């Protein structure tokens, strides 16, 4: 029998990442019933954890455990049995080994910024937080890598190498807070992945601890990994295959400079065609961001970035030396002008560049000023952009809820923001139903449910829209091999009914 944990969903954003607040709606998320044998053995299990960790690394006080009851999907909450904060790979191994022997589920946690509920505990689980493991272990500029403990935050990885002119490319919008461990678990992307790829393309190797406490190394700082690409499947496995404690990350030399342009259009179709033409011309901007009219208007009212009042707006950023930037922008201007834009605005200096980005970076906050909203993360083929935007517009009328679109157009990763009123009975349910319809549409046109946020619990039950039973079976086999007892983050990614027999075993 499933049990209900937490209620409601409501998201507001501030500058960099989303905050979600619980409301008093009726929406429920099914989670497995906690194992009563584990709950009643709490004292013994905690004592055992204390036996393998320093005293300050084990938390079992209920009030303190509140800090671990949810991640950034705060609509759903449940305090864990205990939380542990190890400092070394050996301590992680000792914890996992103990939990494996006791049959206690473990939920790994980076910084808790998952928007998908990836670090949501169950009452019978131990939260394994890597936050104290944040050391830089090695920087090697000649071989262009950095090795860090996985609790280190994304931005502080770049911070550790910027004095030498290097950076770490994946830049999720939560990068100030999110940990490399979570980036690897979710295969995080960011605004600049059009050029530099996502986490999996910048990850050279990991130290991984399996649920049974075995420590292993996958990949390393050499030209390529050997054997089966286990590193490739660990990245993006949402903490279900093992706990990554250390990682070798590719660092890149910083480009000489960067500059954005803003282009406004009178229709989404034309903006979409312009994106396709830029890509087809062989230009490789580091970012192509897209905003539609509802989003532009909300943003203007909120941030007053001076955006034109038009149907669709692109922000395109290019990199290189001054001459290279000019060369690329001239070409982009030529392509854009052929599409009869209502405005083409090039940043003449740093202040103007900031202004162009200001609206885009305030977009989530601006939408949050209007109402509560839910942020989606489906990806579509770029060619389907006009069709999908039209359908979303039609559905918006059908559901009676406004929606704004702001997304990474270069790679088709959409972030529709559905506005609703959390205090209005039934609105949240309508919003979630609308969201599910949009994600189904993404799959229907050849895309996917999630481009960079992950499945977690949020999209778990939509997996069967994208995957046939055999497709999910093949994925679950991988977990069978890494974690035969299904103790690591077990109630995530796969629909509960699909994983039921395995979790029971």
């Amino acid at each position, binding site marked *: 029998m499933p049990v209900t944990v937490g209620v409601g969903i409501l998201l507001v954003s501030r500058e960099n990442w989303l905050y979600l607040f619980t409301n008093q709606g009726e929406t429920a998320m099914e989670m497995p019933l906690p194992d009563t044998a584990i709950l009643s053995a709490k004292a013994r299990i905690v004592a055992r954890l204390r036996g393998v960790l320093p005293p300050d690394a084990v938390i079992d006080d209920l009030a303190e455990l509140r800090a671990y009851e949810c991640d950034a999907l705060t609509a759903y909450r449940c305090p864990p049995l205990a939380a542990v904060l190890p400092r070394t790979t050996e301590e992680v191994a000792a914890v996992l080994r103990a939990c494996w022997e006791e049959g206690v589920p473990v939920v790994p946690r980076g910084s808790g910024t998952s928007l998908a509920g990836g670090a949501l505990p169950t009452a019978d689980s131990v939260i394994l937080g890597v936050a104290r493991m944040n050391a830089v272990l090695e920087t090697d500029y000649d071989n262009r890598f950095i090795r860090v403990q996985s609790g280190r935050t994304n931005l502080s990885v770049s911070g550790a190498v910027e004095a030498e002119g290097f950076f770490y490319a994946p830049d999720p919008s939560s990068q100030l807070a999110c940990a490399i461990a979570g980036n690897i678990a979710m295969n995080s992307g960011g605004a600049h992945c059009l050029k530099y*790829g996502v986490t999996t393309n910048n990850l050279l190797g990991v130290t991984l601890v399996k649920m049974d406490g075995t420590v292993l190394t996958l990949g390393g700082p*050499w030209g390529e990994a050997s054997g089966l690409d286990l590193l*490739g499947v660990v990245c993006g496995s949402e903490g279900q295959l093992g706990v990554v404690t250390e990682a070798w990350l590719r660092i890149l030399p910083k480009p000489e400079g960067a500059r954005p342009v803003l282009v406004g259009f009178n229709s989404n179709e034309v903006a979409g065609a312009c994106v396709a033409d830029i890509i087809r011309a062989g230009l490789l901007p580091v970012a192509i961001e897209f905003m539609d009219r509802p989003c532009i208007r909300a943003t203007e009212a909120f941030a007053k970035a001076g955006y034109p009042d038009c149907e669709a707006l692109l922000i395109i950023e290019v990199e290189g030396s001054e001459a290279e930037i000019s060369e690329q922008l001239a070409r982009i201007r030529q392509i854009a002008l052929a599409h009869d834009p209502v405005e083409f605005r090039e940043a003449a200096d740093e202040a103007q560049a900031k202004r162009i980005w200001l609206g885009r970076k305030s977009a989530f906050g601006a939408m949050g000023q209007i109402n509560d909203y839910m942020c989606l993360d489906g990806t579509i083929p770029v060619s389907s952009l006009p069709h999908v935007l039209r359908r979303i517009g039609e559905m918006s009328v059908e559901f009676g809820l406004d929606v704004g679109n702001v997304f990474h157009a270069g790679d088709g990763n959409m972030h529709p923001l559905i506005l609703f009123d959390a205090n209005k009975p039934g609105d949240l349910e309508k919003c979630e139903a609308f969201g599910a319809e949009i994600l189904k549409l993404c799959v229907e046109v050849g895309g*996917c449910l999630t*481009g960079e*946020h992950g499945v977690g619990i949020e999209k778990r039950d939509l997996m069967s829209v994208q995957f046939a039973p055999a497709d999910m079976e093949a994925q679950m086999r991988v977990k069978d091999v890494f974690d035969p007892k299904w103790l690591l983050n077990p109630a995530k990614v796969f629909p509960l009914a699909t994983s039921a027999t395995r979790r029971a075993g």
Partner: protein
Amino acid sequence: MRPVTEAELAEAIAGAAGPLLVRGGGTRTIGRAVGEVLETGGLSGVELYEPGALTLVVRAGTPLAEVEATLAGDRQRLAFEPPDLRGLLGREGVSTIGGVVAANASGPRRVQVGACRDALLGVRFVDGAGNVVKNGGRVMKNVTGYDLVKLLAGSHGTLGVLSEVSFKVQALPEAEATLVIEGLDDATGLAMLRKALGSPFDISGAAREGGRSLVRVEGMAGSVAYRTGQLKALMAGDVTVVEGAESAALWRRVRDVTAFAGRPGAVWRLALVPTAAAGVVAAIGGEAVWDWGGGLAWLLVPEGQAEAVRATVAGSGHATLIRGEGAVVFPPEAAEVAALGAGLRARFDPRNILNRGMMG
């Protein structure tokens, strides 16, 4: 067996009485497996090509040359530059795109754009029990479920037989230029490659062959000229610049290891920590072609040196026997890693019929 549809492929595998030797064109197979030959060449043709979205979906048995010609028609290409190893391995035949994926075959541009696995967006395959499985898709960003796409790339047909693959492709650059640096010893010549890769000039190739270090830049004409000039000032040694077709020819030689084609001896492929590369190769001896700034070394040595090669490489990388007698082909793995690989194979191919023994 030569199925022409995915359903026939599934049927052939489900009904197989014994081991199957999966073969695209057989032009780059390196492991040793036995069994009835299962050819994928019948599964041929482009399913979808959207140049404006940089997306190609193609059936796995499609010849690589056909894929490249299709892309070239729209001034695009596979960014990862798959090598043609027929000369090196002394093979005939037609390389297939599925074989490229199964080997994760990746050329010099890996230093800039990643390997085949990084350009691969989706796969369809038939596992050893005859189940059709799909993973990934045709979009650029996708974190829905586990990434079996990566797992299948480089699995050498041991987890499943690919029926369809999709790629992110790349527009052909307007210009390319290569700095040719002569007059340096290996250690210094490789240090120049690392220096170039550590610069902000977006290097798309960093190799050393025949006593020359090669550094490539590609892109818009003005940008290529600018970066070439900047790099020239950074490099020591005697630097000349070649462009266009002449530059492309240099990189085909590196990519295909043409220098070792038709010459006697064993050929090893070493994945190395770049700064350790010169020392490792000097300790082993033999002749090397270096790529990826020293992260990869192709090594021509007399037959029978497997133990020395592997012992010297240990700690700095790993060694695969690409051409030669006797020794185990794939690098040995730590016991716990090997156990995971064996576990995956046992579940994806429970009867152990797909390329049995290929990867050890």
